């Protein structure tokens, strides 16, 4: 049981898919200008990884290893189509905003990486836990980045104005505070993730890389 909980807890910190394993960076950076998009992306990846890992683990003994990449891609693509259609049906605006990036979950290396590294060698229950754990680890970083970028970039969280109204100059804005629109642009996502990595490794020197 202790081992099972490790499967979920490890990827949240010391074996985080984004900051340590370097998997799934593309989508982590592109859609984090808003917290809402980050949360939806996390849920989508959670769904795809949880189910995908179980499916791969169930069929791991019957697929020839030569064609396993194509099989993996097909499994993921089918799951991503489900996510995409659900989003289109229930939240069309958001699915327009996320655009091609929902499709790019297919080639999100975090999914293929965990298939290869874990689901092909372990039973369904453990694979499920591993999938959930890694998707959560991925989501934690996404939500942290989305939180800071939306708060500092547009002064809102989930669309609600937290710091006051920039036009009527209430709240923090009455003191002369201005939104830093630069946070919404692509390069700041990279720098925010860089800083998260910095903080994480400063707290845990065992993770520091050789130069």
């Amino acid at each position, binding site marked *: 049981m202790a081992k099972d909980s490790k499967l979920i807890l490890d990827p949240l910190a010391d074996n985080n898919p984004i*900051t340590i394993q*370097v*998997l*799934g*960076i*593309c*989508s982590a*950076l*592109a859609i984090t200008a808003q917290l809402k998009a980050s949360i939806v992306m996390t849920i989508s990846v959670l769904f795809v990884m949880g189910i995908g890992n179980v499916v791969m683990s169930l069929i791991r003994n019957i697929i020839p290893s030569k064609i396993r*990449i*194509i099989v993996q*891609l*097909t499994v993921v*693509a*089918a799951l*991503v*189509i489900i996510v*995409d*259609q659900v989003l289109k049906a229930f939240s069309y605006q958001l699915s327009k905003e996320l*655009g*091609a990036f929902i*499709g*790019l979950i*297919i*080639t*999100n*290396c975090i999914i*293929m990486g965990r298939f290869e590294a874990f689901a092909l060698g372990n039973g369904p229950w453990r694979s499920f836990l591993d999938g959930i754990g890694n998707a959560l680890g991925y989501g934690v970083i996404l939500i942290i980045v989305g939180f800071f970028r939306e708060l500092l970039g547009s002064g809102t969280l989930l669309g609600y104005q937290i710091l006051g109204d920039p*036009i*009527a*100059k209430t709240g923090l804005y009455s003191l002369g505070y201005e939104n830093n629109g630069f946070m919404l*642009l*692509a*390069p*700041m*996502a*990279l*720098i925010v*993730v*860089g*800083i998260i*990595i*910095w*903080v*994480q*490794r*400063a707290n845990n*020197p065992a993770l*520091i*890389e*050789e*130069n």
Partner: protein
Amino acid sequence: MEHIELFFKSIFIDNMVFATFLGMCSYLAVSKKVSTAVGLGAAVIFVLAITVPLNWLLDQYILQEGALAWLGSEYADYDLSFLSFIMFIATIATMVQLVEIVVEKFSPSLYNSLGIFLPLIAVNCAILGGSLFMQSRQIETIGLAFNYGVSSGIGWFLAILAIAAIREKIRYSNVPAPLRGLGITFIITGLMAIGFMSFGGMLTGGSDASEKEDDTLQVQVIEDLERKEAKQQLAKNTTKVIK
């Protein structure tokens, strides 16, 4: 003219790595040495140049709404676009396998330099992203689709070449310990992306880009006006309160 514009736009302005973060995983993982980075970059250009036009054909003649009209009028209202993910990824995976076999047969030297990277490419988001953006940007002709594939490949190639060269040099610098390796690479990429943003004004002479800029300018003007009005109202209110 359209071709030249698309070419420069996809290399510099919409650069895959710096503007849309496509292919970041292999960009970070394979950029430790310039020679391997060149190999992977070349393979990406090659595969994009093949898969983007191919997926363009699939999109035009099978997937789009009404694309099946060539089969007969009873098929004209089918909309298969929900299948595009699975079709695109299947094309990419099979094309990569096919290219690998063909290159191995006809050019062993090219195979030796590209060989190990080809299977990696099937799961590189830059390749699928190229096809998906081709679809969402509604590229009109197959020539433009080919152009888009090649030029965004070149953009990716430039990016990985630059970061690999910087990482080779940075080995001799004294980076703070927790930032070493991954952290500093992220921050350098961020700074490079800021640099690439300056290319944004490159095509303002063209029709498309200038229109976009006009739009943002107008929005700014409107916002400024709104602010001014709000300020005036605030001033009025405060004078009222004082009175």
